[in-house]
């Protein structure tokens, strides 16, 4: 673990650099393959429609994974994530229109803990400013 960020220099309220993501159907289908979760709602538009979704639904933990990438973009090392708590508020729907789903993820340091750890609240928001997924990450600094 080689975190580059000094705990003493990090104030509560500090914003991490936000990231924009685009998710095409092929990205979600790759995730199905990598996780071996082939529930139809994630890759088959007919199954998605049958449960009331207009389009296939991205796996929640795929958005969680993308949110956690903001942590190593900041600390330089993914091993600095010591805990994460994801809450899935709204499904991320992926239209098969060549554009797919888009969301922006931003993060804020909300708490300083003992042992040189901090809490970062990460939020994925849709272009309509709906909260899709929130992740509370506990991050080990140096």
């Amino acid at each position: 673990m080689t975190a580059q960020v000094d705990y003493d220099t990090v104030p509560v309220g500090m914003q991490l650099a936000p990231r924009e993501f685009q998710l095409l159907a092929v990205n979600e289908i790759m995730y199905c393959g990598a996780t071996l979760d082939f529930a139809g709602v994630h890759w088959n538009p007919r199954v998605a429609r049958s449960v009331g979704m207009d389009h296939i639904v991205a796996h929640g933990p795929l958005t969680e994974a993308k949110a956690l990438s903001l942590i190593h973009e900041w600390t330089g090392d993914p091993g600095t994530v010591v805990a994460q708590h994801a809450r899935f508020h709204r499904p991320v729907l992926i239209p098969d229109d060549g554009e797919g789903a888009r969301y922006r993820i931003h993060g804020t340091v909300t708490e300083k803990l003992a042992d040189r750890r901090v809490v970062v609240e990460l939020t994925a928001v849709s272009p309509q400013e709906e909260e899709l997924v929130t992740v509370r990450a506990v991050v080990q600094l140096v």
Partner: protein
Amino acid sequence: MPLNREFIGRTWRAAEVYEVSREKLRDFTVAIGEMHPVYLDEEAARKHGYRTVIAPPSFCTALWFRMGNWPMFEPEFGKQKDPVCVLGDQRVTHHRPIHAGDRLWFATTVRDIRDIGRHELFEMEHQVTSEDGAPVCTVVDQMISRGSAAPKE
């Protein structure tokens, strides 16, 4: 039809070890759209202080699918094809990063099943341990079984 609450407290243990391969970590890393070298390049991983490449912090959340999704497909559990189950909440505690070459054991315990309105919530705790029994990570999933709660009087 409601889920079978007799499952609360039951634990299922995988019959075989899960061996983490470098290539599986590469596939998973690409699938989440990542390029960080500690996932992909052994030399870069060593420069970061790891003995070999490590898994992204969400990799452990996918092991349950590989291990067979217990108890979802146990007929007695009562999970129907319809309504669908969706993941509402996921908590992960890492005791150490997962490394390529790790041989992991996996156990799932049903911690709770309860009504939330018309739906049911069930909570599973997945314990991932190394061969010597040392904890590697814990994943707690809360799934929502839509519309399966028993009708209220």
